[in-house]
């Protein structure tokens, strides 16, 4: 395979900022991305992740800060001068061109000789497994195929950096899983850097080398998928990473980071993540870690439960009116009273007041 990214060491975002009519859509984004790295920008909608991507692409000018590719400052370059590849959310395939011409467009703009274009396009078509459809128009192929064309079109010019804007959000669940693997395979094969915008934490966890969590235009946490999954730095990141139970609690005693908290009538043990918390704390725990146990400290009644094949997931309510998402190996019925508990190492404690 001769498709491979041009050489560069790192892409540096230095205090990148973008305002929209007095609003900070993006604040103080500072990040260094190494060659070959797969970065996921993860956040809820409206968090500024697409804005960040468009700023990197050059489709939106920065309001402050700078972008560097090694020693070259690139934030004042036009999109066509940056040489990055981009996969759009709606694919943005040229509807009047065959797949072959769509993929060859970037090479044609670079004024490469026709025989080089033909060879490279053929290679890219094989990479995304669309050789047979090469002469069709984009309107004649399925969404998943269009998405692969969009990827092929972006990488055939060997960009140092490929930007992907929620490329899987328009696909059905099965295709999304397949394409996820496909995207990672192609990334590994060509050795470019990829910045991948998504609001789906599963996607980010399974694809990325590092995940950047954005909220309200600010970076909340940067880390490996494992770091983010096991130790979210803030309560809001925890919520986004699947810690569905965020419970207001009162800290009682603390020893080596291990806290005992009062949660209504119950006592719960957990580990402090955010230093400098006061008495008011938030205990975050995943539904899958909160299960009915014999000596479970939290007494609650089942409100609803749904069957997920191997186990049951449900909602339970304590006498104080606290809602808890839990998991159970055994069947539970609405109204059934449970004693819920979680191992202390799975309960993360953050500074309180918010929730």
């Amino acid at each position, binding site marked *: 395979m001769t498709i491979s990214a041009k050489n560069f060491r790192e892409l540096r975002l230095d205090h990148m900022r973008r305002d929209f009519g007095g609003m900070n859509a993006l604040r103080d984004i500072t990040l260094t991305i190494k060659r070959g790295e797969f970065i996921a920008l993860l956040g809820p909608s409206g968090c500024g992740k697409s804005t960040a991507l468009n700023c990197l692409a050059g*489709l939106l000018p920065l309001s402050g800060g700078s972008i560097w590719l090694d020693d070259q400052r690139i934030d004042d370059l036009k999109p*066509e001068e940056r040489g990055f*590849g981009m996969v*759009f959310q709606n694919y943005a395939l040229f*509807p009047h061109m065959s797949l072959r011409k769509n993929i060859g*467009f970037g090479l044609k703009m670079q004024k490469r000789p026709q025989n080089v274009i033909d060879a490279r396009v053929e290679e890219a078509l094989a990479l995304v497994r669309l050789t047979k459809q090469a002469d069709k128009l984009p*309107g004649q192929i399925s969404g998943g195929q269009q998405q692969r064309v969009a990827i092929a079109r972006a990488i055939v010019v060997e960009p140092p950096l490929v930007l992907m804007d929620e490329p899987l959000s328009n696909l059905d669940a099965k295709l999304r899983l397949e394409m996820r693997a496909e995207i990672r395979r192609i990334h590994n094969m060509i050795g470019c850097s990829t910045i991948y915008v998504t609001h789906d934490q599963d996607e980010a966890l399974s694809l990325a080398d590092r995940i950047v969590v954005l909220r309200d235009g600010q970076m909340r946490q940067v880390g490996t998928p494992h770091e983010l999954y096991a130790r979210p730095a803030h309560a809001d990141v925890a919520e986004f990473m699947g810690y569905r139970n965020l419970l207001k609690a009162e800290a009682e005693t603390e020893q080596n980071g291990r806290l005992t908290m009062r949660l209504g009538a119950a006592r719960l043990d957990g580990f402090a993540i955010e230093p400098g918390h006061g008495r008011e704390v938030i205990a975050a725990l995943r539904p899958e870690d909160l299960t009915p146990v014999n000596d479970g400290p939290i007494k609650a009644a089942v409100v609803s439960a749904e069957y997920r094949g191997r186990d049951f997931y449900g909602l339970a309510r304590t006498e104080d009116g606290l809602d808890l998402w839990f998991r159970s190996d055994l069947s539970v019925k609405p109204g059934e009273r449970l004693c819920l508990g979680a191992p202390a190492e799975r309960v993360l404690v953050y500074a309180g007041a918010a929730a």
Partner: protein
Amino acid sequence: METIPLTAPATPGRESLKRRLERAGFDTTTLLLAPALLFVLALFIYPALYGVWLSLHPMNGGGWLANYTAFFSDPYVYGTIFTTLELAVPVTLVNLALSVPIALRVRRMRHQRLLTTLLVIPVTLGTVLTAQGMLNYFGPLGWFNRVLMSLHLIHMPVRLVHNFTGVFLSQIVSGFPFCFMLVLSYVTGIDPSLENAAAMLGARAAQRFRHIILPLLAAGLAITFCLAFVQAFSVFPSAVLVGAPSGPTRVIAIAAFHAAYEEYDYSMGSAIAVIMGVIQIIVVALVMWLSSLFYRGPAGGGKG
């Protein structure tokens, strides 16, 4: 040979006819078309056919085609075809050429509605008012010439009315907003992410226009050309008011008017009108054929 129906019709006749009509796509809703059909029949089809019939019955006899042979044997009369084409084709092309870049710019503007309103005003004025204004503004003693003279750019007033230029300018003024509105709607129909995608692939603005915008706009431009051309080809008021109706701007509509209402030869007038229609159809067919060589599908970027 006898065929056995799988399900025998319960009551043959009215019932089955209704069923059959429904299957072919005619039901009671189809009746809603009736007023429109009547309207088209009474105000368009009948007069057109009547005109053709009239043109084939010459006032002075001499066979069915006497009017047509008379038209094509007199250079003063058949010359009007070329006079009109020489006016209508450049006017249409200039209007299109002006509309495209302006529409591309306006698409990205915030006060789009204000600007489009301003541009549409000339349409509402009507040809006569526009002509009146032009006579004052562009006339030998009008502002335009006086400003140029006082700046010593010219020594003699430039002749801009009562000639070809006058009609040309008038047609631009009244035709441009029409062209512009149509082109704007076609331009805004092109997904902006397509241009962004082209830019990301290294295409500069001119290349994006040539490879993305223009091919996607081709079908729309062809339709706009046809509508604008038909309008310009039937020019009459401005050719009389700001033109030279006896000479350089003696367009085909004037010839038809002359025959019908000054020589009272309705038959000849109809013949000229029919010829006019045929020429318009030929040009429109030609343009539509040309545009069929281009992409005609939706101008979106894909699903989503």
